[in-house]
């Protein structure tokens, strides 16, 4: 006790210590190793050597820009869809859920007690060529008689949207739930229409949730490969599939490492642009 009294200034650092050590050992060091590996050349048979091989990056972009763009596209699309689907749900639970709130939230989370792979395989059955969904769409002439959903981009985006929905819905719910109802009442007392009150009060106050949800959905979705693998055909494959095949099938570790870095950079740029548009205070959730 007296030690802490004498060295009061040290306390925050001591408390931060474990966290920093964790990040250093499990994030910074592996990242450094990945960077080192991404600049190696050679192959598995003769071994790899560090040669400042920047060509790995150039080759990755030259050969696989389509998959990079597709990953950002699918992830972006899935994020927007997840937002559109979960905002009304979260809104309704937060403002109208009453004593059922916790149960309703459980319903959102419940499917996620099942493993990721099984959930995705379930979509393979739901969207199967002779399944209910395809048959209905065919009879409505939305799909041609030989049309299908499985092994198309629709199926991949649907799968990603579904799999990441709770990451969107839960932060949205939290930020909506915190909104003080009297603020909305006040807006309406001041002659704002319901729509106006929503646009001028509720929506801005829920923005930190929107931003958090968007990031939590977009970032892992961009690196996903299971959905494209199981629900897509080769022309729907994302960069995650390429990295997986480079790493495991071709044992081309430098290529896989450089692609991981490019993906990371791509996501950072996308997030930076997004932060610029919505404002950084929303990003860190400091706005209230």
């Amino acid at each position, binding site marked *: 006790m007296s030690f802490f009294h004498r060295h009061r200034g040290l306390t925050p650092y001591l408390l931060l210590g474990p966290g920093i050590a964790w990040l250093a050992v499990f994030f910074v060091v592996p990242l450094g190793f990945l960077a080192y590996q991404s600049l190696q050349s050679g192959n598995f*048979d003769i071994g790899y050597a560090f040669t400042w091989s920047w060509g790995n990056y150039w080759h990755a972009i030259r050969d696989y820009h389509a998959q990079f763009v597709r990953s950002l596209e699918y992830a972006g699309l899935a994020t927007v869809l997840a937002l559109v689907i979960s905002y009304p749900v979260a809104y309704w639970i937060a403002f109208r859920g009453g004593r059922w709130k916790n149960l309703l939230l459980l319903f959102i989370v419940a499917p996620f007690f099942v493993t990721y792979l099984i959930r995705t395989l379930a979509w393979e059955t739901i969207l199967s060529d002779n399944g209910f969904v395809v048959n209905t769409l065919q009879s409505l002439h939305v799909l041609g008689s030989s049309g299908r959903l499985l092994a198309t981009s629709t199926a991949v985006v649907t799968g990603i949207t579904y799999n990441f929905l709770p990451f969107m819905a839960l932060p949205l719910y939290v930020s909506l739930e915190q909104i003080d109802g009297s603020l909305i009442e006040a807006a309406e007392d001041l002659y704002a229409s319901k729509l106006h009150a929503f646009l001028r009060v509720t929506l801005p106050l829920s923005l930190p949730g929107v931003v958090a949800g968007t990031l939590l959905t977009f970032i892992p979705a961009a690196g996903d490969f299971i959905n494209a693998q199981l629900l897509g055909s*080769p022309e729907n494959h994302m960069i995650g599939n390429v990295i997986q095949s480079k790493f495991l*099938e071709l044992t081309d570790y430098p290529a896989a490492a450089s692609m991981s870095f490019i993906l990371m950079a791509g996501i950072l740029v996308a997030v930076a642009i997004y932060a610029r548009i919505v404002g950084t205070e929303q990003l860190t959730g400091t706005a209230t």
Partner: protein
Amino acid sequence: MTDQLTRRELLKRGAAGSALLTVPGLLAACGGKAKSSSAKSAHKLAKTLHFSNWTLYMDTNKKKHTFPSLVEFQKKYGVHVDYVEEINDNASFFGKIQGQLSRGQSVHRDIVVLTDNDRYLSLMIKKGYVEKLDKSAIPNMKNLVDVQKHPNFDQNRDYSLPWQSGMTGIAYNDTLTGPVLSVDDLLTNPKLKGKVTCLNSMGDALTLVMLSNGDDPSKVTDKSFNAAFNRVKKAVDSKQIRQFTGNDYAPILARGDLMAAMSWSGDIAQLGNKHIHWNVPKDGGALWTDNMLIPKGGNVYTASFYMNYVYDPKVQGLMEAGDPKKNITGIYYIPPVAGAGEWAKKSDPSVASNPLIFPTKKMLDSVHLFDNNALNNQKYLTQWQNLISA
């Protein structure tokens, strides 16, 4: 005289003592490094054999959830088999163990099983990641069928021994399509458009296509590779091929989303669906074999001893056929042990007469091995991976 004895005694004791001191010391110092060779060849069975295999690849008692041949092995020899079904594809499993092996560490497995039509089996041997078999403990190796005796990745079978073989051909669902008997049909018949899958293993897929092109898959040239590759690519571009798959085509085929699929014989034998038929394509199919290996640091004697056990035709026959009366299912792939058929017949005659498990001579004559050099050709591999994952 006494002097000499004493000296000899002394030397002996000294040697034994230093051996005692150094062996564990070395082991500890290396932190689980491969055991020294003297420790490995000690002819003493270990208490436990760590065996990593593919899923659904062992005779199984469905009621008791046990593996009868492994239970029998333990009963007879007192060695418990820690049997783990952890291999789903060659690449992922190799990726999992190669890090430790490349650093000279043991992977704590005594037997692993890899396929000869993928590059990793030969890579394991070439890189020195495997132990030499103790052939003195495998007298039953004489029962190995002739065609398997001198594979090009291990000419004298010093490091590997077949577990089971299978054939690659075409399966089709007769409720959705007429017979699909050729690669031509599979890749170009407009009625099958978007309703067929191709295997993602290059060796399997290209063997079939090369045979259909009239090329020899066991001696791949740039010309024959490009011809076969372009044919598959064309089928992808025209959307004839819907997906590239591993084992996962089987449920999709059974569900009716596929009319036909490039497929492995054993999967269809296990599926047991009367509407799904498997055949060797008109121009020939592929033969592949899963091989047992002892990764560095594994217990060579115990592993070799187990291999000898499964190379007993009687044991192999029972493993293959199972026993329907006792609710035991067999492996249902192609056994590499001569004479297993006779024993299989005794326990389940329907298995012994199933050509997917005990193929006819005509079938075996029409299946081919893929060129091992081509499997390790980085250019071909990259091209193939780009096709199937991009």
